[in-house]
């Protein structure tokens, strides 16, 4: 092998290595981007679940608050009794 051939081979080898390294970096980047997207989607789903749970809790709290306010504004002052209509036993 002549010096020129050796130099060309070395240059070719370096070019192949550089191309491999570049493709490897791009592949790693693509994998990283997919993982990031998966994590973002999972985080978004989790946030949606948490928001839904918070909404349900808010609705329950509002119901309790409403009942409490109604009781405060309109406290029971007495009772009325419906004694029902007597019927034969077992009917």
């Amino acid at each position, binding site marked *: 092998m002549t010096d020129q051939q050796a130099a060309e081979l070395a240059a070719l080898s370096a070019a192949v290595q550089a191309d491999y390294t570049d493709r490897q970096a791009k592949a790693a980047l693509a994998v990283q981007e997919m993982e990031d997207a998966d994590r973002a989607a999972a985080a978004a789903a989790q946030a949606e679940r948490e928001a839904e749970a918070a909404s349900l809790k808010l609705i329950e709290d509002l119901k309790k608050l409403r*009942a409490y306010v109604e009781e405060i504004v309109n406290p029971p002052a007495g009772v009325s009794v419906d004694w029902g209509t007597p019927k034969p036993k077992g009917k």
Partner: protein
Amino acid sequence: MPTVKFVKKSALPKAAGKAGPPKKGDLLVIGDDQQATLTVALVDAAGFPIPNGDTLATLSASSSDATLLTFDPPTGLTDHYNGLKPGTITATLVITANDGSFGPFTIEQPGTVNVGAPNAATVDWGVPTIR
């Protein structure tokens, strides 16, 4: 923008009037062969029923004479009672606030347990004597 909703007066909730027990005057009347179910409603100072009363108060019911009239264990503010034997009784209802914020309200309702409708006949043939 605020909105105004018109509601017919007839559609408004009615004040709790005197509920319709089987009374003779103010007397609770039930037959000794009968049963009935009472329902208690909490009302405000204007006499209007308060919603969800079951969640606010507890009912206990008792009879002055358990041989004449008995109450089953209440369910919420509803209770089932049974006439057993003719006589005069006083039914007592006590409604207690679950959080102690009102009441307790006590109702003492006099009543009678009447003889039921004829269901069979018994015959006393008497004691024979010399004519």
